């Protein structure tokens, strides 16, 4: 059982992102006019200013763009070390997610590694963590 994570406050913009894991889906906001992905999710396309946007499931795979191994116990309940990574999301050019890489020793993570989403549920939130594709 993992320690409780900080919980995002759900709203109309972010609900699909944080709850998509209930259906096993990583959902990103996308423009239905110009097809650009919009992250963080907002009710407007930052490429063409269209309001015709809606959440859409992506494959849920990606590549580690960069990472860090955190050793500092920022609060007493935190288990360290753990990997924080910035993952470039397949099929959604320009979208990066900050996340944790789980399921492997912290020193086996590197830039360029291929990863797949693995949701961790806490309450109504499905945290999109990632694990290495082996």
């Amino acid at each position: 059982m993992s320690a409780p994570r900080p919980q995002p406050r759900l709203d109309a913009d972010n609900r699909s992102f944080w709850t998509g894991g209930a259906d096993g889906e990583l959902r990103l906001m996308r423009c239905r006019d110009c097809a650009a992905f919009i992250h963080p999710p907002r009710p407007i396309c930052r490429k063409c200013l269209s309001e015709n946007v809606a959440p859409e499931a992506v494959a849920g795979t990606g590549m580690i763009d960069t990472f860090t191994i955190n050793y500092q116990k920022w609060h007493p309940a935190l288990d360290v070390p753990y990997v924080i990574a910035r993952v470039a999301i397949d099929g959604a050019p320009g979208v990066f997610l900050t996340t944790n890489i789980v399921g492997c020793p912290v020193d086996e993570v590197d830039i360029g590694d291929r990863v797949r989403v693995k949701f961790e549920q806490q309450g109504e939130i499905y945290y999109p963590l990632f694990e290495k594709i082996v």
Partner: protein
Amino acid sequence: MATNDAYITGVGQSEIGVKLTRHPLLLTLDAVREALREAGLSIEQIDGVSTYPGRMQGYLGFSPVGTDELIDALGIRATWYAGGGEITSQLGAVVAAAAAVRAGLARHVICFRTVYEAAALARPEEYPPLKRDKVDGNSQWLAPFNAISAANWTAQYAMRHVKRYGLTREQLAQVAITDRVNAALNPRALMREPITLDEYLSARMISSPLCLYDCDRFTDASTVLIVSAGSAIDEVKCTPVRIAAMAGTVERHSWDQPEWMACYPTGADLWKRTDYKPADVDTVQLYDGFSFYVITWLEALGFCDVGDGGRFIESGKRIALDGELPLNTFGGQIGAGRLHGFGFAHEAVVQLRGNGGARQIKGDPRVAVCTSGGGPLATALLLARD
């Protein structure tokens, strides 16, 4: 002197400490008094106030004093004032003040940054820590993954430099080592003991590749810069330092969506607005809330190519007090304390006036660059003693 230019005139600073008990408004007053004395101005001549990020009610240690309170407490009659965090970083408050005096909205503006983060930790009932049941805004994309500190966010950019450009810990160490050497020569600095490369390399890791010595630490202090209009410069007794160029750029206020930190476009913009060139710069005072920012600012400002920042400072000789490009001569935030941006402009002015005492750089420095910000925030100022 061009009357339509903006100048930094008086500069001042309170004591720099940890867990101080002196009221943050009084620390601010200490810095104001010193700046007024240097400028030969009286408080009646001040007609503008500017700060970053303004009083933060939910996080008073981070910013305990705002413009409203300072104006009232010191009996200032302001014709212009501004304070807020939605600006290009800490020194954005100086950019705003410079724009205001050039537009004729004020003549002499007190720009201040007061920090009370260490005192707040010691007295949480008076200065409560940031409390939140749920995270929203930008935090929601970071905190849920326990990417809690700016150390984590910054470390990821640093790791990319390690992997892509071969940045080494030995290179990065030169920032902290240089900061500590310089801090020892600054009577006000907080961390006045030097550190060796071995001590650096054996320090505990915070968020790889950043170790303890790559981070600044919570501090209680106030720093003041008075920005004066060229048309009012005859009222000032000290040697004015001209703000020769300013830049601050944001594309996306996010720690994970932009490919590059905001310092890169900001550094490029700075040189588009002046005839000065990087080769003209006598000293650089570069934001070092984390040591890695110095690497990126050196690259961003064109002192070396992108990716070469580590090699540029490799032996530490180039950035030493007697080197070709003295860096953070007051100790930076890593050595002097987390003054949060304003310390770099303060020191640039001290050096250009020859007031550095034991840490004064040799020769006749006339041009300095000072910066603030990291990640999505960046401000750069080019200062010149004409």
